[in-house]
């Protein structure tokens, strides 16, 4: 089995050899490490992408908008991803972002996973019919578990999820009430031992 350190080193060198700058190659290397750690097929997709990259004549996107559509060919997942990550603080306010025609979208995914950590919000990502919930770059929840190469995506939809509770207030209160059963009722003399007791807070 390859170690994550080997995966990172080889991905970095290969990305540089495929024409990306050293700084971008470093990003790709971190991403492939991440995908493999989450048991997603990073190496498989990167290898396939680099083999086909030249013939794909990909389009680069610099500034990301709410809706992004490649003109003739597909977007490069790495350049789109790196710019999405860099611009996530401004993109966050757009709430929903779409991309049409992106090559090898699984290589785009880890940039968004890292973006989720940067803004401290979960991001829902849909690559055609494959759904991913990116949880602060700590884990990825998905209905897609196939160890396969995804050569292209017609539609990518990305939604920044607000930090909201996943439960009703009533459920919280019920559970809180139960948790209170670990507390001890204080009498007057015990209350005197609490922090700040015996002082006047108006001095």
């Amino acid at each position, binding site marked *: 089995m390859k170690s*994550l*350190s*080997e995966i990172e080193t080889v991905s970095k060198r290969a990305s540089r050899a495929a024409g990306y700058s050293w*700084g971008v190659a470093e990003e790709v290397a971190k991403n492939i490490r991440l995908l493999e750690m989450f048991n997603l097929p990073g190496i498989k997709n990167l290898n396939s992408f680099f083999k086909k990259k030249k013939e794909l004549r990909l389009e680069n996107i610099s*500034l990301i908008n709410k809706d992004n559509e490649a003109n003739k060919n597909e977007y490069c997942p790495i350049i789109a991803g790196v710019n999405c990550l*860099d*611009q996530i603080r401004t993109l966050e306010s757009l709430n929903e972002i779409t991309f049409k025609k992106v090559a090898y979208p699984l290589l785009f995914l880890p940039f968004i996973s890292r973006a989720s950590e940067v803004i401290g919000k979960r991001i829902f990502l849909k690559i055609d019919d494959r759904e991913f919930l990116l949880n602060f770059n700590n884990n990825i929840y998905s209905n897609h578990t196939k160890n396969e190469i995804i050569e292209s995506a017609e539609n990518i939809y990305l939604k920044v999820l607000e930090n909201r509770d996943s439960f009703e207030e009533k459920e919280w209160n019920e559970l809180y009430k139960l948790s209170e059963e670990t507390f001890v009722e204080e009498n007057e003399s015990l209350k005197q031992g609490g922090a700040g007791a015996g002082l006047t807070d108006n001095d």
Partner: protein
Amino acid sequence: MNVPLRDPNVVMKLSRLGSFHQSKLSFLRSFLKEFKDWEYKRDLFELNEHGYGTAVYSFKKKNRVYSLICFANELDKNERSDRVIATKWDTAFTLFDGVPAKQDIERLKNEVPKQEFGRLSFKELTLSRANKSVRVFNHVVESLSKGVQPDRELLDKVGYLYRTTAVYGSGKFGLADRFRIKDRKEIYGPFRLEMMLVYLVRQFTFDQVNHVAKNKNPKKAVKLDPEICRNLGIGNSTGLGMAPFIVNHPTLLNNWISARETSLKKIREIKNISNEEIELFLDCLKKSIKNITSWNTESEYQIVKIKSLLSDLNKFIMHLDKEFNFKQDFAFNEMYLHLEKNYCEECIEYVVSMMMEPFDDIVTPLIQEMSSEEGKYFNIPTERTVAELKAILENKYSEILNIDFSKKENNLNFWFISKNKEEPRLANRFDENGADLEQPLAIARDIKKLYDLLSISKNSWTIAKFLSTNNELRHVVRRAFIVEKFPYSEIQDNTIGQEIMPIDMLRLKLSFFGALKFDPRSDKWLRICMFQGAPLPEQLKNYDEYWVYN
């Protein structure tokens, strides 16, 4: 009194970093301290009469066990090479996480001797190999088998029976990734497991030489005197492989230097020094001279450095004995200011290392902070502005921004990875092919390029906007934001100029390892000795922490 930390523009110059010496912070010393109360054992020793076979050594505490597995194989003398391009060695080693089962040993017997061409697993932590100093090893076998101890002069001169040519860890060739073990308290200091491997290999070399001598002449043979063993270490040949490491691990480099600088600062801030502290400092300093007078090298470069170090140290000791008042307030601060004014860099850094010796309470807590998680600082804060990044460069790279890289001498060399052995190399870009495959180690030049680009960009732009069209300099944008937080994370010198001495980078790292007697064999590789004088495993429980100077 508040003494400022030393300026990175002084400390992080290559000539200064290349003058560093071992200290209390050094990894091999902190390793011994951490593992002194672990249970040491030789679990297996199955060598034939010639010393070939398998051995296992372990350190154990509670439920944790680390086992060194040694494989010694016959090697034709024509196959023995210290070059990193070698493919066979006298011995090969791996440090196993736990107690190896028979199947593990069988599996590793096929893989470990192949080194870079073998495959390890997450159960193995470090990997290494070593070659005999045939002259010394044979002499020791001959002597012991005749019932006499070997010639100490010869042993003192060489310093080891075996020398390693590489020690690998952190996921190389399938070894365990660091994340799997990083939370273990006993390995909080950097390179702990690499140090353990070398330390146990040293013991194997003694056991093997005794075993071969005994088999040669079972009736007459004697064991190598433990006192002689103690004065032998493990040699190491180190080439350029280490140089990129310190550039590629900026926060780790910062934490090493920062521990040293913080120690020095705190020591200079001590108002009154006790008599015991003064005595200990002077004792270590004076005894340590022996390590310099017994320092053998044929390198003209190093001979000059040793000479000036020795002459400066003698002058300095005389000054301490005759003129210096240890009872004045902030005596170590006065001493440091005197050093900076009057002595060479090699001497200044030598004494800085010595100053730490009496101050366990200052130094020991800092050892815990010498590791780093580089990944935490990987993301670029792209919401910051061009103006802010420019200010960082002006503030943190002020001298580098003055280098003119259009001059050939400042842009003479390039770093590359050799195809044959995947090892870093340095070459003249105007004489050799391959500059188009340059590694991103020309930080000074790229920082200058970045500054020039920032200067024609709008100050109000965010870094996200700047990078959207300037990603070719992304690697140095990341570094600049790291150096903003970690002042000692960057070498403040040109690593591709005509004057570069790559061995300065190697010495920096090796000094933190705790190496003694640097012996440069060219400007690109050197030999060192590790654990020479260190207690033997059986002596660890009550060892003298100042063994380096005995």
